[in-house]
């Protein structure tokens, strides 16, 4: 229980701050889905990679810096402070925050050597093919089939809600390879080359106006067996390690970003509110909500530190994930109320109204809030499973 801040940490922080000051793009990320948006995300990734900031904690052999998690957090914090492009809402997110870590944990040497540097440099964009029309919260209901044919897997079926499928070269694909299996057995995790013949992608328009999540259809798509991660039949286990990253470490940069966003709202109110209703805004109901989210944002960061310190197994990430996703919605709902009538225009105040709409996804993607509460209840607090869920 102490603040750890070595001389090296301070130097690292300064180095990060200087580099970011010189390199964070001046223009905003295009909000329309399309080539310009993809280029923006990939260019920013490339710039970080070329500058030596590809990844702070990944091993050097794969293009990371091999530094401890403390430095990683400093980097995220400085990125947030510098208002660098966000980690989520960025097509490199899937590769960085879960495909990469999963390959590091479960991949073979060839997979590591090929994929990890490409993820860091932005040469390869990834997407996640888990959900299907019939398998959302109940992921074990996956039905997309994979048939082993010689040294290939032949895949047929459909995925849905695949974020950034239109941008991606590779996909984390969860399929059923044992036709006689049900539920968790008989699944396989395979890296799908999105340019393989038989892959068809159809974007879906979302409530915020983007169309970066897609339906993906597979018509006898042939993938080499060498693309399987963790072995045929081990798919559920690999998918669970992936979800632990998605619900755990993937939250770290976002926690830093939320705190910075709350400060942004405070600055806005400081600059605007006094002229409207005098300096007494702090005493108003909106002032109280601002204070509450400021406290929550501080607590979220502290929860990240507690998660790291306790190292108590994958389920605890659900605390951070649940708190984070609901806090993001509270913050953007508050922004709407602060904006007043200007909230009726999507682009107001740097796009907060658009973000407000977009943030409805946070309690659905990566496991809904209800599923996170099930996990907390059963796997952290030890409550019995309900009758209907087996």
């Amino acid at each position: 229980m102490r603040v750890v801040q070595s001389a090296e940490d301070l130097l690292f922080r300064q180095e990060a701050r200087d580099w970011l000051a010189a390199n964070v793009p001046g223009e905003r990320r295009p909000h329309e889905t399309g080539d310009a948006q993809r280029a923006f995300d990939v260019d920013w990734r490339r710039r970080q990679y070329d500058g030596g900031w590809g990844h702070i904690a990944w091993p050097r052999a794969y293009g990371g810096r091999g530094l401890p998690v403390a430095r990683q957090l400093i980097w995220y914090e400085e990125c947030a402070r510098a208002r660098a492009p966000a980690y989520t809402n960025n097509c490199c997110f899937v590769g960085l925050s879960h495909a990469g870590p999963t390959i590091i944990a479960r991949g073979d040497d060839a997979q590591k050597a090929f994929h990890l540097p490409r993820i860091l440099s932005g040469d390869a964009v990834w997407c996640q093919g888990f959900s299907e029309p019939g398998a959302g919260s109940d992921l074990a209901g996956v039905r997309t089939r994979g048939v082993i044919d010689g040294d290939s897997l032949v895949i047929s079926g459909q995925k849905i809600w695949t974020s950034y499928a239109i941008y991606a070269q590779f996909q984390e694909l969860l399929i059923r390879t044992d036709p006689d299996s049900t539920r968790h057995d008989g699944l396989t995790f395979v890296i799908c080359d999105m340019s393989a013949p038989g892959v068809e992608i159809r974007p879906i328009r979302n409530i915020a106006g983007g169309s970066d999540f897609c339906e993906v259809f597979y018509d006898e798509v042939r993938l080499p067996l060498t693309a399987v991660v963790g072995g045929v039949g081990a798919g559920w286990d690999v998918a669970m390690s992936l979800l632990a990253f998605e619900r755990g470490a993937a939250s770290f940069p976002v926690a830093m970003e939320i705190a910075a966003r709350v400060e942004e709202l405070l600055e806005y109110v400081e600059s605007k509110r006094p002229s409207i209703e005098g300096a007494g805004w702090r005493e108003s109901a909106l002032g109280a909500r601002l204070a509450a989210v400021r406290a929550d944002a501080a607590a979220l960061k502290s929860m990240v530190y507690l998660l790291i310190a306790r190292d108590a197994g994958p389920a605890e990430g659900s605390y951070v994930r649940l708190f984070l996703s609901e806090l993001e919605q509270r913050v953007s709902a508050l922004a709407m109320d602060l904006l007043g009538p200007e909230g009726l225009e999507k682009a107001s105040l740097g796009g907060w109204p658009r973000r407000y709409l977009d943030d409805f996804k946070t309690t659905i993607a990566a496991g809904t809030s209800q599923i996170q509460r099930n996990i907390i209840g059963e796997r952290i607090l030890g409550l019995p499973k309900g009758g209907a869920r087996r």
Partner: protein
Amino acid sequence: MIDLGLSDDQRQIVDGVVALLQENCPVSRLRPSAAPSDVHRRLAEWGWFGAALPEHDGGLGLGVAEEVLLYFEAGRFLLSPSVLATTLAARLTGGDERKALCAGDRRAALVLSLGGDEAYCIDGAGAQVLIAIRTDEIVILPAEAFSGEPVVGLDETVALERGRLDHGLRRGGERTHVGVLLGAAMLAGVSRAVCDLAVDYAKVREQFGQPIGAFQAIKHLCADMGLNAYAAEAQVKAAAAAAASTPRDAAFQIAAAAATAMAAARANGSIAIQVHGGIGFTAEADVHVYLKRAHLLSGVLGGLEEQHRWLLNCPPPQMA
């Protein structure tokens, strides 16, 4: 970053304190039917009141981080706010008075201003010293500064008096947020303990042929309690770390801790009553005491709005 792990020493301290409190202060001592008990002397013998004071003053020579861990447990075991008052009084005094406070020979009690010269005094019997916690200041007064009459308190496990406080008798104070920090730690402990109590109940109480914790409606209430307790513990520990080593950020982190812990304790106390059903509405069950204690401690710390005001006035923390 902030390392929120405990050192081996800290772990030992927590284990020792939990054993002490389990033996001497089970929460059942607060039931209406239980015989009155006084744990002040036992705590003094353990070294509680001088935990963070130098050894030559009768203290244990620990730091504020360790003291926060003690107060988390104090919250879990629902120790009287007078314990906090005595710790703070020992910090503010010196010489023989400090030694007497550490030894348990003199005691302090908390007073809570109602505006003007009206105030409440909590568990004032036997106290020679009074403590008032303002967010950035702790005020110390002699017991004679307060004169009041008993009133029926929301939290019947403490004695509440209402009366007049003569601020003119004030003996100087200390400009520090540590009172709020330790109070926030107690609230975080309350949040955790009442969550555990309700979750344990949800595992054993059966209806419709299964434990009520298997029903998602109950499970999700429990998950919310777990989340609230986790957030409060995390932020209180981060604030303790800041208080110990980055004073510039301490005010922000402590206000955020107080706000988070107040909200968590209040919410968890309320949810836990619902999870218990009818028994949760009885005086004999322990669960209501946690909710009442959440209100009492929040009041002592100036209330949620006061902490929100503070937080809005702090610059953002420099380092996380």
